[in-house]
């Protein structure tokens, strides 16, 4: 499918780690749906790992609750450099619908620095893949080409720019 398929295997596969800091699970199931056969982000070499120690990208969902704040910081500290954080969903971006609730501090950036914000409640798996690949494009221009290819083929539907 991709002309440089063998080239992909030489590019370091980005490993992502998923953390829910207090969400409703709506975003979590869409992150997982992005990994499942229908959307299948794994074919780009993006793998979900359970431990932050080997992860390049931390995918965060949910608003940050008081109880999860220290843990989010600790997990971020465990990741090796270079590391990136993606906030998936309106709650991870800003607290979303829970902003103002007593145990919610706000978005993920109240605890750790965020590189990419993907709004939505929840964002579709297409939008999540778009966000992840856009981030990876900052690391490796081949991912930007991949993103254009996916849009051209209609595999990801992106309105606007």
């Amino acid at each position: 499918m991709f002309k440089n398929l063998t080239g992909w295997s030489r590019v370091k596969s980005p490993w992502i780690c998923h953390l829910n800091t207090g969400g409703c699970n709506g975003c979590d199931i869409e992150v997982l749906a992005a990994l499942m056969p229908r959307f299948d982000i794994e074919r780009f070499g993006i793998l979900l790992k359970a431990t932050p120690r080997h992860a390049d990208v931390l995918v965060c969902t949910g608003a940050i609750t008081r109880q999860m704040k220290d843990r989010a910081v600790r997990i971020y500290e465990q990741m090796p450099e270079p590391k990136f954080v993606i906030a998936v969903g309106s709650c991870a971006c800003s607290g979303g619908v829970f902003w103002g609730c007593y145990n919610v501090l706000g978005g993920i950036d109240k605890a750790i620095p965020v590189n990419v914000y993907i709004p939505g409640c929840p964002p579709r798996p297409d939008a999540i893949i778009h966000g992840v690949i856009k981030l990876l494009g900052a690391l490796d221009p081949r991912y930007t080409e991949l993103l254009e290819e996916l849009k051209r083929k209609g595999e990801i539907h992106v309105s606007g720019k």
Partner: protein
Amino acid sequence: MSVSIPIGPQHPALKEPTHLMVTLDGERVVDIDMRLGYNHRGIEKGAESRNYIQNIYLTERICGICNVAHTSTFCQGVEELLGLEVPKRGLFIRTLLCELNRIHSHLLWLGVAGHEVGFDTLFMYSWRDREIVMDLIELISGNRVNIGINAIGGVRRDISDDMRPQILQGIGQLEDRSQYYLEVASTEVTFVRRTQGVGKLPKEKAIELCAVGPYARASGVEYDLRKDDPFAAYPYLDFKVITSDRCDVLGTAIVRVLEIMESCKMCRQIIEGLPPGEIKVKAPRKVPPGEVVSKTEAPRGELIHYIRSNGSDRPERLKVRTPTLADIPSVLYSLRGGYIADIPIVFAAIDPCMACMDRVLLLDIDNRKTESMMTWEELREYGMRWYANRKG
């Protein structure tokens, strides 16, 4: 000699990332304790400063997986306080989405259960089939998750005639696939070995500890609000309540797969018998003083919203008890005396809102001396190795 192992945080249920403290004697769990609250957001208090319409959006996000159940329970409660009668067509559409929500939730569970026992093929298949349901939900409501279909007074979107063939086709596909899952659940060795006889919860204990939902029904407790306290369009539908006498995790799997089949039947009845008419009545913004106990059967079991109104456009008090909280005493009971290798699947049997999928687990070392710490992933892998070594 007993050893204490903390596990977690991870995320089940409504109260998500949890922390389990397990006390072991060799391989056996002597005691298990659970710490909740990582996902406590303060929604009940938040509801008091939002009006009823805003609260539909807030309650929907208590749990993204059972979002339709939450809005249905909430809207139904406010409708009762207002003395509104929702038109029959609106009730039918609301019920259709409730059942589609149930199907997607049970398929999600099936995949997660498969993952917990190392049967990732089941995970992939069931989540792929779940996309059939997600497409139907998106067709009707415009979104896959957190769909906003319910309004106070009815539903917001109608089902047009050209949607019907697509819905019926999707239901047909799901019925075929559930036959396959029934075979897998009852005969596939990888799955049966890890779930048969595991996580035993006798019927008397399930009743004593007030368990609900498919988890209780798998222990023979015949309690399903759709039959016992009918709401929405359930009085007009013909369906069976599924129970099992197995009292173990395999029982919960079989009950859920059979429930998917019953839900498909109900969806078919709804589409074929959809009455004409309005989908919603107009609702006033202010709700006269009163109180209501609104209950529905969410995918995980008995869900209650207690609402007290005070004449304004904001509730005086909203109290929500989600079904997973009701099942926690029972699951802790069934884990005691079992093997540590069984913890992931037994825990998953109550269908905690998000099972062990993303596990980034960091553990605080307790002030007490502990021998070791484990993440959920490590525990799951331990379980798979343990069973592999036990072969023969």
